[in-house]
């Protein structure tokens, strides 16, 4: 007879693994990626490929030489970071900036904290914010969808809906006049608008989000709390003064909200552990997003909102414990 194993119970194991979760997320991002290729063409392909390749390379090298660990990158987490980072930048971003952003995302936001599972902040968002403050011009030049898709020339650029809104209001235009130039909700839903390459199409992101819900990779708590709180907050503002504040539907479909709510705020590593905590986290993201969009310096606030809430996660975990079985007042 062979040697038999003696180990503590349990002796069976569920079939969920880190790899399955991570590659499931990658799969869920495919619709948004395909849509980005449709709208932005070769720029979307190269940006995504470069970001994923640099994230993988950065993770491999840093794990091997800095953490002195087994440099296995097959868990898929670096692929997610790469894809998400590319989703958060314009498809026209110079390739070397994409590489720098990837190295920063993996190196500073992930490996410096100890690698997978130990980071406080979402690496892709840290990478995006690094790029935004370092290369503000390149990071806010948005190629016009469906223009010059397959040629390697400088693409036509145009504004994002949120940018249009912010600039218009700052220049003293009225909301009703501005609305004439803003894209239709149908275009915003499908994704035919200016923006980062992966954030434009609400429908593609929803599709991926539903897949992750179905597979149990994410739960409904964070996206629902996030989207509902944005809708409620902007709804109240719209109700108070519809000449100054645009309707909730616009806010839901514009910018990176959908991408943030389904793919970035839900990042397991950087979000709370309990359902209660997740709801608090989602509402915090929603409130901050609306505040930044309406009163901040930037037209878009999703990345900042999520990063700020990431910082609160340890506190939320302490404050919002699960309900214990047999919990009594003085027990």
């Amino acid at each position, binding site marked *: 007879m*062979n040697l038999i194993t003696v180990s503590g119970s*349990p*002796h*069976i*194991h569920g079939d*969920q*693994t*880190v790899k399955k979760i991570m590659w499931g997320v990658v799969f869920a991002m495919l619709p948004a990626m395909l849509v980005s290729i449709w709208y932005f063409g070769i720029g979307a392909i190269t940006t995504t490929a470069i970001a994923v390749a640099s994230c993988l390379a950065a993770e491999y090298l840093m794990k091997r030489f800095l953490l002195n660990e087994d440099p296995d990158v097959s*868990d898929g987490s670096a692929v997610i970071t790469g894809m998400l980072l590319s989703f958060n930048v314009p498809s026209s971003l110079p390739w070397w900036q994409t590489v720098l952003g990837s190295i920063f995302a993996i190196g500073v936001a992930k490996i410096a904290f100890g690698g997978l599972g130990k980071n406080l902040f979402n690496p892709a968002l840290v990478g995006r914010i690094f790029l935004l403050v370092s290369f503000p011009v390149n990071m806010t030049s948005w190629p016009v969808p469906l223009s010059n898709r397959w040629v390697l020339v400088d693409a036509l650029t145009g504004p994002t809906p949120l940018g249009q809104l912010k600039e218009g209001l700052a220049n003293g235009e009225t909301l009703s006049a501005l609305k004439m130039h803003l894209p239709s909700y149908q275009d915003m839903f499908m994704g035919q608008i200016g923006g980062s390459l992966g954030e434009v199409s609400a429908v593609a992101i929803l599709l991926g989000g539903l897949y992750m819900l179905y597979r149990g990779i994410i739960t409904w708590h964070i996206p629902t709390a996030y989207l509902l709180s944005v809708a409620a907050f902007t709804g109240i503002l719209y109700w108070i003064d519809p000449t100054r504040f645009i309707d909730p539907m616009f806010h839901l479909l514009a910018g990176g909200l959908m991408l943030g709510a389904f793919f970035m705020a839900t990042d397991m590593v950087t979000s709370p552990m309990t359902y209660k905590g997740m709801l608090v986290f989602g509402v915090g993201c929603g409130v901050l997003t609306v505040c930044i969009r309406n009163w901040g310096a930037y037209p878009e606030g999703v990345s900042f909102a999520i990063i700020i809430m990431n910082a609160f996660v340890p506190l939320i975990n302490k404050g919002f414990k699960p309900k214990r079985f*047999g919990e009594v007042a003085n027990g």
Partner: protein
Amino acid sequence: LKTFKIGGIHPGDNKISAQQPIEVVPIPQTVYIPVSQHLGTPAKPIVEKGAIVRTGQLIAKGDGFISANVHSSVSGKVQKVDEVVDYSGYRRLSIVIDTDGDDWLETIDRSQELKKECTLEPKEIVDKINEMGIVGMGGATFPSHVKLNIPQGKKAEYLLINGVECEPYLTSDHQLMLEKGREIMVGITILMKGLNVTKAMIGIENNKKDAIQLMTSLAAEFQGISVHALKVKYPQGAEKQLIKSLLNREVPSGKLPIEVGCVVHNVGTAFAVYEAIQKNKPLFERIVTVTGKSIKKPSNLLARVGTSINDLIAMTGGLPEDTGKIVSGGPMMGRALSNGDAPITKGTSGILVMPEKESKRKTTMNCIRCGSCVTICPMGLEPYLLAKLSENQSWEEAESEHILDCMECGSCQYTCPSGRPLLDHLRVGKSNVSQIIRTRKN
């Protein structure tokens, strides 16, 4: 269908030995009977080397309040009273008997006839259960008479009978219900009388539809017994979870079921009580499921206490080539054995033989803070946090995070996508915290 609310998991059923009729294991040449087959103080041997014993004779006497008598499972001559490695892997005092025939005490009624009437008074019932060495047959092996002694100031309202058998693979309770349903019912009425309660509820998970149907029809013949189908969810067979499922009552943290007016017994215990009270038969044999994916003939066996696990496995076609692990009990809470020499005891509900490829743990990765362990913990604890506190030896903090509420059901480790040994850390933490609490009291 009813079930408990917080947490829980759905491991694959794998009840491959279901509906296999109970088969009797031949009496072995030698039996090894540990004097500690129950929770609490070990029993004191009252026979010496060379003594001639009969089947059912008392050979070790319960010592103290939480303890249980041990009886000989065979007739023969005591070879020695010595330490033998038991299922826990430790050497424990055991009485080794060389078998010579099967000569039962004449006080034991060996007929198969059902005896319904019980004329004993409640006090006499409890005393007799004590005398016959009955312990919880679900695996926890808590001496049954202790549960029947209701503490001053408390009152039992319900007797709950556990027919859940939520551990994957195990089918001994299921088969017992199918074959000995009437005897179990009588056992329940005796327990009700002993406890002075009028209501008993039997909880059975919905993956045993035949047992639910049979028990429901049998319950109609008895006063105050009701049968309840429960939604399949592990660990529903845990005492506190079963009470929550059946009555929606929550036993407060650190308290016993009697706090909410309940006493819980296993169906196997109810059967043992029937035999003890109605047939004068001490607890010296039990039903054991012997199963596993590579086992030729997964079976439900009736075996004498002290028979070696190897003998039971031999009955099912022998130890498979690809064996990688032998577990006493179910796959979630059972104990892995270093070999099959250990004897079965009153608490052995099953022997699970696992193939090599399923025996090894997964490689451990970093915690990705997915929160699954928190979501599924049936006690509403935070296993990831408790494991970390335990790793850091922060015992006080682990205590204030209620590490002692953990019942070691293993759901957290089962679920963890990173394959982290959460329960290993929790066990270490629990034993250290208990130690600290004990020293504090002294």
